[in-house]
């Protein structure tokens, strides 16, 4: 079957970052990684198609920074990759990204779409189910198990406290995949070399029949400003090297336990 896997390349902030004077995040304070959840959704797609003829297509909405991670998806076994970008998409929220992914999905017509539950930088937990809404697809969020029998999937939905709901859902549908569902593979060196021969299409909004205004109209919110959390209420910091810190912790533990 054809499976579309939207993946996000996420920004993780350096330990010593500071906001710039204009309250934006400086480019050199950011490291780029494949969103942790998307390593699990990609693996789930690869496993579902194992031994079957089908296609796994990884798609990202991201600038050139994202390309290396998209290649890593190809190295792990995705057949094809698509990168969509337009500078107007910088800082776009989940609903705007979903509208771009919807255009890709309409062109690709996958039988299954596997998103991650959330992206570790934005923690919106919204793009996948928003995409399903736009496509009018059946969907299940926070999935920790997928079994397929023909057109029917039996999935596990993970609830609070580790309770699991077993559900039946028919293809075509969209699932958001939770960590721990499988063991994501690493790419072999050979596969990494071969990945450079696999197709990676780069497209702008126009090719998808979109423009900045139509995507912007889908946005659910606008970021007015970023600020640093109030630190005052935070922890009393213990100074010194490991021995001093350990001594202080030991004292705090003894005192708190006897209180």
């Amino acid at each position, binding site marked *: 079957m054809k499976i579309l896997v939207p993946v996000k390349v996420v920004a993780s902030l350096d330990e010593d970052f500071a906001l710039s004077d204009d309250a934006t995040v400086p480019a050199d304070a950011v490291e780029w990684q494949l969103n942790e959840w998307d390593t699990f959704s990609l693996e789930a797609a690869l496993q579902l198609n194992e031994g079957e003829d089908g296609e796994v297509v990884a798609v990202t909405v991201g600038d050139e920074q994202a390309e290396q991670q998209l290649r890593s998806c190809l190295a792990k076994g995705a057949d094809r990759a698509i990168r969509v970008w337009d500078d107007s998409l910088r800082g776009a929220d989940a609903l705007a990204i979903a509208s771009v992914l919807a255009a890709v999905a309409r062109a690709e017509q996958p039988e299954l779409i596997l998103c991650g539950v959330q992206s570790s930088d934005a923690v919106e937990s919204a793009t996948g189910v928003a995409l399903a809404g736009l496509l009018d697809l059946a*969907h299940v969020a926070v999935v920790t198990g997928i079994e397929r029998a023909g057109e029917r999937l039996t999935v596990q939905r993970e609830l609070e406290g580790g309770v699991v709901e077993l559900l039946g859902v028919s293809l075509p549908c969209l699932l958001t995949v939770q960590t721990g569902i499988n063991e994501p593979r690493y790419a072999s060196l050979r596969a990494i070399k071969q990945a450079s021969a696999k197709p990676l299409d780069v497209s702008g909004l126009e090719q998808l029949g979109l423009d900045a205004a139509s995507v912007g109209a889908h946005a659910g919110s606008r970021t007015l400003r970023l600020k640093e959390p109030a630190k005052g209420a935070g922890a009393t910091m213990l100074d010194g090297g490991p021995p001093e810190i350990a001594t202080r912790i030991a004292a705090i533990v003894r005192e708190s336990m006897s209180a």
Partner: protein
Amino acid sequence: MSGVLVVAEARRGELRAVSLELIGAARALSEQGAGPVSVVLIGADAEALAPQVALAGVQDVLVVPAPQPQFEAHVTQAALEALVQRRSPSVVLAGHTIDSLGFAPALAARAGLGFASNVTGASWGEQGVLAQRGAYGEKLIAELDFPGKDTVVLLLRPGAFAPAEGVGGETGVERVELDLAGSARTEHLELRDPPTGDVDITKADFLVAIGRGVDDEGQIAELEQLADAMGATLCASRPLVDAGWISAARQVGQSGKTVTPKVYLALGISGAVQHLAGMAKAQTIIAVNSDHEAPIFGVAQYGAVADMFEVAAELERQFR
């Protein structure tokens, strides 16, 4: 054409605690001028649960019977689509919970509503509703507005808003019949409880919690020894459980256990929202993390920027 619509949440016939926090937040918005508060309950249990949400400050409770007893995301989505269209609330409040993640983004995307998830603060002013949420993995706070949106859906983080209390005298209960037949697109098969494990970490007074600062399974043994030496029980964040290095019974957080020990010593845990959901109410939280920006320092009483293994080795020496 105004007001705050609260989507109360229930599971297995019981109202979930977040519902009262939603009502608390709705009441605050209402006092700032957002209009009256209505609470909607969707599902087979709706009628029975209505009295529990008929609190002071709630104008009316809408009871929407559903065709199936369990929560079903598409049914809830269809019901809310219809209610939003009929009533045009200014704000719809639901929890940032597993159930809501299944319908709220689709609801907002399809109807072109304003939307923000994981919201930790909300206020009402001249420009309508404003919201706050974490950004860049909780290291920053983003302030959001919703220009041009008549209805804004906010998913509020559980625990971030004070719960409402006080029984309402004037609250009306209205049964709203919606045509929801055929809107379900998944079939409920069963609910499974997590297996009971080897330990009950919720009973421990002193927990040593380890996270992804541990990057090798071989390091677990020395941390077990540390917990033993200190008279503590070992627990962990989710990645160590996902990796199969530690049993699921020891997982703290939203999808694991909620613990309230006297002391919670967190080693190499960043403090993601879903982890905090399980331990923020511990009496004394001590965090050791090599990153001085780690969000865990925001909830800890005591913190140290250090290598967890160096501190662990020193601690073991002192407690042995």
